[in-house]
């Protein structure tokens, strides 16, 4: 069976085509996986209105290109899957609208997919991790998830802003470019950081809070300007000047330690040794490395995907939607709306044991 997937919950529009072979033991075949990112200027975030405009401008082009690249005919497509939520309202709507139009035009059934479940299922499929604890980290989400009786249950999550949002806004404060994406540039700068600057570290049980770090970042950023008087500039205990690289390094060391800690606690709680990292922030190599050290310490291992699948994409929506479609579930046309709030544990996972 073949599914077309449309994703647009944040600043990326992704179109994917996937085929599930009739033998369930065979892995899914990725026929096409296209994406275009709306990049805002340095120091600015992406606004819902502009992002929706971007998605509208690209959606037809990408679908045409994906279908052509996949080499399938419209008749071959069994189902159209789209992101129902969670995410930003206007971008979600623009893509849902495209999906509905196509469904009517081609006479196809639809499946509305939970974005987070899309990430989880794609990660499991690519890495073959059977029953991992999942850390889902992106611009809009921070969740520690484990599967139990037909639900992806949230064991821990952010108490305020998402980790990706925290990194993006931190980058904005330091005027770090948004191209290709802020987290990538922070990661590159962090590689040259040497000094660890104290930042708030807030973990409560299996939950974490990131908003305090932003407030601290503003103060720190004000102390590293090269135009400042020598005497006013921020220094380490050893007297070295604190650099932008140091701040990126400190940010990563602090927030990733928080993520690894809450993940470890969930693993201890459910007795799992596998961890799967999904979502855009999951492509960060330092996070993967730290997670790997923790998992090894517990006698297990970490699974991660590269940026093709980590970062929002259409293929994961196609994949998760098709899994659901194969259990006989379709979303009625009148229910093919979208929603900004859509918790991972609201989805009935009928396709797993």
């Amino acid at each position, binding site marked *: 069976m073949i599914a077309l997937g449309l994703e647009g919950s944040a600043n990326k529009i992704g179109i994917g085509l996937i085929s599930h072979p009739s033998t369930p033991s065979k892995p899914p075949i990725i026929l096409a996986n296209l994406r275009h990112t709306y990049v805002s200027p340095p120091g600015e975030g992406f606004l819902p209105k502009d992002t929706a405009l971007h998605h509208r401008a690209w959606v037809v082009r990408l679908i045409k290109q994906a279908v052509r690249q996949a080499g399938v005919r419209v008749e071959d497509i069994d189902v159209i899957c789209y992101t129902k939520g969670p995410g930003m309202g206007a971008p979600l709507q623009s893509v849902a609208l495209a999906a509905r139009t196509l469904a009517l035009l081609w006479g196809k059934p639809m499946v509305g997919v939970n974005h987070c479940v899309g990430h989880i299922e794609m990660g499991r499929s690519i890495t073959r991790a059977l029953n991992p604890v999942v850390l889902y980290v992106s611009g809009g989400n921070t969740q520690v998830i484990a599967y139990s009786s037909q639900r992806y249950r949230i064991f821990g999550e952010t108490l305020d802003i998402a980790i990706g949002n925290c990194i993006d806004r931190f980058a904005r404060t330091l005027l770090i470019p948004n191209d290709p994406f802020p987290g990538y540039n922070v990661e590159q700068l962090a590689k040259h950081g040497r000094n660890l600057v104290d930042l708030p570290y807030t973990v409560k049980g299996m939950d974490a809070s990131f908003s305090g770090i932003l407030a601290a970042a503003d103060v720190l950023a004000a102390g590293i300007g090269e135009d400042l008087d020598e005497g006013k500039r921020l220094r380490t205990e050893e007297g070295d000047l604190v650099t932008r690289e140091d701040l990126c390094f400190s940010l990563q*060391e602090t927030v990733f330690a928080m993520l690894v800690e809450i993940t470890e606690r969930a693993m201890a709680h459910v007795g799992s040794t596998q961890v799967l990292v999904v979502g855009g922030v999951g492509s960060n190599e330092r996070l993967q490395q730290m997670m790997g050290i923790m998992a090894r310490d517990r006698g297990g291992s970490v699974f991660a995907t590269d940026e093709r699948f980590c970062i929002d994409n259409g293929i994961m929506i196609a994949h998760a939607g098709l899994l659901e479609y194969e259990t006989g579930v379709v979303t009625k046309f009148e229910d093919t709306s979208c929603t900004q709030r859509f918790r991972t544990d609201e989805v009935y996972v009928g396709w797993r044991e």
Partner: protein
Amino acid sequence: MATPPPPHASQPDHILPPPFTHTPLTVLTQGAEALVYRTTFLTPSTPVALKYRPPKPYRHPVLDKRLTKARLLAEARVLVKCRKEGVKVPGVLGGDVENGWLALEWVEGRTVRVVLDEWVERGGENGEGENGEGVGVKEGEEELWDLMRRVGRAVARLHDIGVCHGDLTTTADTVSPQSSPASQPTGHELDGDIIIIDFGLATQTVGEEERAVDLYVLERAFAATHPAAEPLFREVLRVYGESFKGAKVVLKRLEDVRLRGRKRSMLG
């Protein structure tokens, strides 16, 4: 609530910090954060639970030191506060927070979890009798109800002095036998003080949200034992509710927490 798995067999033993480096000790329990050993402290006849937070190799060493120290210190301070205010918790006999350890008073006794499990087993036998599956007060169960009241009072006392436990499960409550149990005939094995343990996630707060989450976590732990434990927990709550001034508000908040399942609703 899943039971934590036993320590992983293939894992190397941790090298303990001084002065325990050369004492061969066996791990009793291993959580995500801390290892617990049994040893003696100050005198050879004083048993203690040695709680050690080993360094986390994934963490920057400076950050690791800072966190370990801050957390052990916070835990020790909560315990000291409780003892000072007369709430039954393990005392702090010593420690070195810079090197990641505390020596805590050894608590004898059974956890409430064990008591409940045994009760569930017994209940199974009773179920065959003519009483059916009724969970009313049965002969010989009055002491179990009394135990629930003491649990309710213990949690209320803790909250009343401004401490929230943060991980209040049925394994965090221990029934300590009274000092002279030897002379007691059997049937009184549930007598004794309720001692609350495991304060690794505790905070000093009078927030009703934190208090309600404490109760919610405990409720879930009761429910995980057996559905029949529900009326027992109602008794815990009833007594909690009349044990201190702020309790009513907490019980109200507990209803909200139940509805949303601990987690707040949030944007995607």
